[in-house]
């Protein structure tokens, strides 16, 4: 081929009528496949799911005789709704009409701030959720029988808050592990779903930055 790419392009599109637009099907009701829109949808669904989950949890816990645990879990879920709403609101400022670099950077910055907000809260949520469940378990009849059995097998005189010391130590250890690994767990979970997209985004940004600098 002896022609330059510029000539090929110019000659190839000299008659632009050959560029036939595909048939448009119900365009304005179409579900978007854009990553920002997808994440916005995910946040919007999360908000509804959390609210619904809280109500279900409250009813279920009340039915099994643990209404305070239900209420406690509801209270733990409220900040999640607030975070999801706040992050959703922020995402609407992302204009697709910006330069590609600015668009990708603002998308990435929003994404990082959302991940940060969620992971910070999960560091508190998971341990508190675990503690709530554990305390409910301890004060329940079945829990009381289990602790009595424990004391029979591993008798001790050291009692803290009415419980054998090793049970409290175990609770503290599990809670600390949750504090330490909650963020990792959240990011790992996110990576399973969106890992490839995030990697791709990172590559695009690196390439664009190289052009910018």
């Amino acid at each position, binding site marked *: 081929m002896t022609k330059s790419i510029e000539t090929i392009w110019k000659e190839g599109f000299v008659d632009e009528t050959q560029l036939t637009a595909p048939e448009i099907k119900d365009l304005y009701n179409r579900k978007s496949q854009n990553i920002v829109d997808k994440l916005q949808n995910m946040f919007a669904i999360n908000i509804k799911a959390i609210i619904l989950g809280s109500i279900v949890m409250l009813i279920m816990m009340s039915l099994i005789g643990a209404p305070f645990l239900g209420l406690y879990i509801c209270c733990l879920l409220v900040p999640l709704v607030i975070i999801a709403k706040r992050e959703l609101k922020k995402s609407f400022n992302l204009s697709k009409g910006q330069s590609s670099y600015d668009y990708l950077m603002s998308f990435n910055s929003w994404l990082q701030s959302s991940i940060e907000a969620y992971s910070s809260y999960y560091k508190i949520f998971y341990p508190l959720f675990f503690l709530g469940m554990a305390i409910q378990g301890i004060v329940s009849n079945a829990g009381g029988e289990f602790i009595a059995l424990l004391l029979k097998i591993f008798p001790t005189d050291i009692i803290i808050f009415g419980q054998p010391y090793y049970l409290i130590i175990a609770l503290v250890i599990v809670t600390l592990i949750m504090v330490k690994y909650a963020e990792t767990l959240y990011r790992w979970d996110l990576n399973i779903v969106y890992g490839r997209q995030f990697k791709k985004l990172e590559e695009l940004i690196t390439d*664009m930055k190289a052009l910018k600098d």
Partner: protein
Amino acid sequence: MGSDFYQLYILPFAGIIIKICRAYTNNQEDFEDYYQEVCLQIWRSRDNFNQECEWSTWIYRISLNVCLTYLKRRKNGDKEIISDPLPEEAIDDSKAFVSDEINQLYSAIKHLSETDRAIILLYLEEKSYLEIAEIIGSNTNNIGVRIKRIKDRLNKYITQKD
């Protein structure tokens, strides 16, 4: 309102969208999906258009940004991915245009990185380095250097294929 908007503000610029979407897709089905997504996003972003640039430049920006962050549904599973580099065997729309030379050029363009595809498309559309830099959001000098490198790669690819 929707249909009027498409006819009045998108269809006259369909050529731009088609040329860009073709560079980021490897079959007719994907191409149509990308095309519709770009049209949808132009419609959704219409209120953000502040007339600081021309409408055609706005269309270039949205088309490229949408193609760069489109979540492509994979055929073999339910996981979605942002448009991937296209493997050689996947590029099967070699008859997308009437001109064989254009088809060959597109085939070469599809072997470039996503950013390089955007740059060369704008260059071929006779956008100045300054306009390309503004649309991509980069430095004008770097654009010039990058275009030279991309052209070398394209020429090498086309020559090898001949």
